[in-house]
């Protein structure tokens, strides 16, 4: 739901200047780098997309490689510059920013915070005020189901794998939906997973995938671990790019130099919506912006020529069902989730 229920304090101070304000600044703070080919690059590209459709907004140089100990300082430096929107790439920022947000709510009412991949009801309990904050929470069940459909249709060996960088609720949801959707296509499909691969050790991705190929006959991988996914693709390629496939995430990277990638599940972090809300003065209150297949938050990327037209048609058909919420049920997903 996008209807704003912003608090009185931010309303009164913001609305006065809103109509006149002709330029806005946005800054992004991330724990990795913008070219990591995964999580942070996905955020960066979302931001760039949003900027294209929001000409009033300009972006500051992103703050990359932000260590835990510097997370709050980094936010504070943007607060000091009266940046209109400060984006934190992931829930790790949620716990670090409580103080900064509380201080800024008093001293810099025009500064807004957007934290991605965060559930405000469970992850922001120590916030004194949620007035200037919103979060983004994509519908990961949809993402997982989309990948699961592709995997289920592509696998020959009935064995699929998943690598996640960190064991987050979102990661678990993704995998559960992924496996549930694949099983929907063929109940005999087996899933392998690792949720703790981190985001940098590409060689771990290679070795892990090699093990799964050797011991479990895995032939389709879906990854959520940036550089580690590259390693996984490396192993798939070595095992034969004609029979081993990868589904990329969260950016669309299908292309000639990625022979194993058949398609990508693309996440858009709905930054444009946050910008709109700020312009209209409705931003805040600790609500969560959802990204889903309806609003373009979740999409499936291009297909490689390894995916036959036949399969593509089926994927389209199932995608509609996923969008409508009729393909996999919550129960089916949580049944798998409970076994992890």
């Amino acid at each position: 739901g996008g209807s704003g229920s912003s608090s009185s304090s931010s309303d009164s101070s913001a609305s006065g200047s809103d109509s006149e304000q002709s330029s806005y600044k946005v800054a992004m703070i991330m724990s990795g780098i913008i070219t990591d080919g995964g999580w942070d690059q996905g955020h960066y590209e979302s931001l760039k997309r949003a900027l294209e459709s929001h000409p009033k907004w300009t972006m500051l140089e992103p703050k990359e490689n932000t260590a835990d100990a510097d997370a709050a300082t980094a936010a504070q430096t943007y607060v000091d510059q009266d940046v209109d929107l400060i984006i934190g790439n992931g829930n790790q920022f949620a716990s670090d920013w409580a103080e900064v947000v509380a201080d800024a709510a008093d001293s810099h009412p025009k500064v807004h915070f957007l934290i991605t991949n965060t559930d405000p009801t469970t992850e922001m309990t120590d916030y004194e005020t949620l007035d200037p904050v919103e979060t983004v929470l994509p519908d990961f069940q949809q993402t997982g189901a989309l990948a699961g459909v592709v995997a289920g249709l592509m696998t020959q060996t009935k064995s699929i794998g998943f690598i996640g960088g960190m064991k987050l609720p979102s990661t678990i949801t993704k995998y559960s939906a992924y496996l549930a959707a694949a099983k929907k296509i063929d109940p005999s499909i087996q899933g392998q997973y690792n949720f703790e691969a981190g985001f940098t050790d590409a060689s771990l991705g290679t070795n892990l995938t090699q093990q799964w190929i050797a011991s479990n006959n895995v032939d389709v991988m879906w990854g959520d671990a940036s550089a580690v996914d590259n390693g996984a693709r490396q192993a798939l390629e070595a095992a034969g790019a004609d029979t081993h496939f990868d589904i990329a995430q969260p950016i669309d990277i299908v292309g000639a130099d990625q022979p194993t990638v058949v398609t990508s599940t693309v996440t858009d972090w709905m930054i444009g919506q946050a910008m709109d809300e700020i312009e209209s003065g409705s931003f805040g209150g600790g609500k969560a912006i959802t990204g889903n297949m309806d609003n373009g938050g979740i999409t499936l990327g291009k297909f490689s020529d390894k995916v036959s037209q036949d399969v593509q048609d089926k994927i389209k058909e199932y995608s509609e069902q996923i969008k409508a919420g009729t393909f996999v049920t919550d129960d089916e997903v949580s049944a798998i989730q409970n076994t992890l």
Partner: protein
Amino acid sequence: MDFMTALPTILKAMTMGAVPILLAALGEVFSERAGLVNIGLEGVMAIGAFVGFAVGKMTGNLWLGLVVAMLAGVLINMLYAFCTVTLCADQVVTGMAINILAPAIALFGYNLFVGSNSANATGDQMASIAIPGLSSIPFIGNAFFNQTLLAYLAFILVPLVRYFFKHFRAGLSFRSVGENPHAAETLGIDVVRVKYLACIVCGALAAAGGAFLTLCYTPIYTDGIVMGRGFIALATVIFGRWSALGVLGASLLFGFFDGLNVALQAQFQSAPVMFFKMIPYIFTIVALIFFGSKHAGPKANGQPYFREQR
């Protein structure tokens, strides 16, 4: 877990994982034999990984990438050499500074290289060369005889380095500089030159180890791709008692335990995998405890050398 099914893959991971560590550790053997403890391997490897990646991608010639990476490694290690040899600065903290500086330079370069053109994010890979016959030996064939040329070269380097230290005049001179530089100097050995040479070799080999990561392992560079391998290489030098063969054994052992870690992660998926991740480190310590290293290495290792000091 069916260990026998997993074993060939573990062995493959072992040989693959051992190569970057081996290369860096061989470099460190030269360095420490000349009395220079270079804790900055990690940083030099990062430079090597990035430059190898970028030049390989830019020129399309991976071997050129490797050579330029090694040159870059030498260059950054000259900073270390100048500080520790010419200025006699503390080796540990200089190395540490390299570990901060070098990856930052690499990251900066990567930003420039990829930031403007995201097509640059993925590079090319050296192809594996399967040795006919040998590569089909069960269990070990794929691990040992189906590798990239660079990996073969790394393994061939081991007997060469051993031969160098045993049978070359320069090898003896190298050792004398690490043992007693004042004595070496009185025999007309140019201690400073040997130390600089050691840094050149060390920088080149460590950078080659880093370049292996991007040219042979995965076709990408990420900040932090070295993942502590530089430190592991340091440990293997001690564990390998400053000898090429020992270093080979130690890096294979580490590679094996790392492969085992991954195999366990792959099969025991709901277990707390961080305990598997500890395995390579704990076993390095355990191995050190059992096969001990009372041998303390070159005597003047880590000490600055002032010529006119008494």
